[in-house]
């Protein structure tokens, strides 16, 4: 009886050992693959970082150039940034970045990011360049999910509508006229897609109001 028990224990022990051995082997194999994968990823990440950063910077600068002529400022626009905390007028829920343009140390303009939450589908992300005098230099849509062929004319790739903001200001167009024509305002829209331009007009107006309220802090000397 005793010897039988003993034998049983030995097999049990052996089985446990094989299980542990097998599990260990499997775990080591998994670890080895993960390690090699991580090494490869780290290498590629480091190798591709400079070109990615360069092309992102280039793309951003090209966009800036479209809405704020390069001749109107003389500072390093990309380097002169002001962080903006979440603000109802700009619609950002996360801190965003404003780029400040100066010419001979004097304020030239500012590029703000604004988000309209009341588009037809999803957020509309806008980039708005405002001159120091409070007029709009240009607006572009950074990202949107509006219906292709209907609401997407706010994107320069699908129409010139976004250019109707050029040179606009609250001085030129009274605040209560910052509406689409259907609502008795100043701005064009396309039949069948009024929700989209309505949201954009509202967002641009709010960005202008934000600028008027905050221009002192935006152009504070520490900007450099």
């Amino acid at each position, binding site marked *: 009886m005793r010897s039988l028990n003993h034998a049983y224990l030995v097999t049990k022990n052996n089985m446990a050992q094989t299980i542990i051995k097998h599990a260990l*082997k*499997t775990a080591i*194999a*998994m670890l080895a*693959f*993960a390690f090699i*994968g991580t090494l*490869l*990823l780290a290498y*590629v*990440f480091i190798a*591709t970082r400079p*070109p*990615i950063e360069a*092309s*992102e910077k280039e*793309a951003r600068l090209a966009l800036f150039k479209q809405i704020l002529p390069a001749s109107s400022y003389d500072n390093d626009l990309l380097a002169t940034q002001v962080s903006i905390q979440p603000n109802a007028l700009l619609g950002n829920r996360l801190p965003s970045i404003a780029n400040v343009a100066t010419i001979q140390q004097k304020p030239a303009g500012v590029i703000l990011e604004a988000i309209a939450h009341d588009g037809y589908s999803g957020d509309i992300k806008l980039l708005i360049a405002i001159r120091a005098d409070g007029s709009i230099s240009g607006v572009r849509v950074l990202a949107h999910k509006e*219906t*292709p*062929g*209907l609401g997407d004319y706010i994107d320069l790739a699908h129409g010139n509508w976004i250019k109707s903001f050029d040179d606009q200001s609250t001085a030129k167009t009274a605040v209560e006229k910052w509406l689409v024509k259907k609502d008795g305002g100043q701005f064009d829209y396309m039949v069948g897609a009024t929700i989209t331009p309505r949201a954009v007009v509202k967002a641009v107006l709010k960005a202008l109001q934000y600028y008027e309220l905050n221009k002192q802090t935006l152009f504070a000397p520490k900007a450099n």
Partner: protein
Amino acid sequence: MTNIYKEITINGLWKQNSGVVQLLGMCPTLAVTTSAVNGLSLGFATALVMAAANGAVSPVRQYVPNEIRVPVFILVIATLVTVIDLSINAFAHELHKVLGIFIPLIVVNCIVLARVESFAAKNPTLPSMLDGFMMGSGLMLVLGLLGAIRELVGKGTVLSGLDLVLGPSAHAFMWTSVDYHGFLLAVLPPGAFLGLASLILLRNCIEMRKTKANDASALAATPAMKH
């Protein structure tokens, strides 16, 4: 030996085409094919990932314990997809803006894991790589064709945006019809389903015609045979 390669090629491009026969990888098939260039580009990226994944798994297949083969395969695929994602971002930034969110999705494309599991885990390296590439190319053809159809019907252009991939000189290959305002439905999601259905229909028609012709000749040869 060459017969195997020929069979793999035919399987990938026609017999077991992942886009219209196996119907795997529906997410990119339906979502990205709003233009021929988008479809072809994502198809090409998928083909690269599949060739690389099959080629990476096949040589180490006996070192992968059976219990963890799926996690290991996914790990390999995810690594390769990220490598390709970063490379496209670095060297074709504009294209990356268009395909950006879809490239990481190649990881979850069943066809990639399916080929690793069913082919690369059992076959030598070279045929595995060819299998991956041909399966991917089959998908690329479907994506490109579907993209071209939707683009042509929806917007009246073909290969628009090619300059994002190949540089400004590619404008010469773009074709735009004059005075066509587009049939929006083709570009919207329903257009993807309708377009894919038409492609499947087309393929099935060709296949059925072939079988019919074969049956007819078989009947003629052995008139006594019953069907």
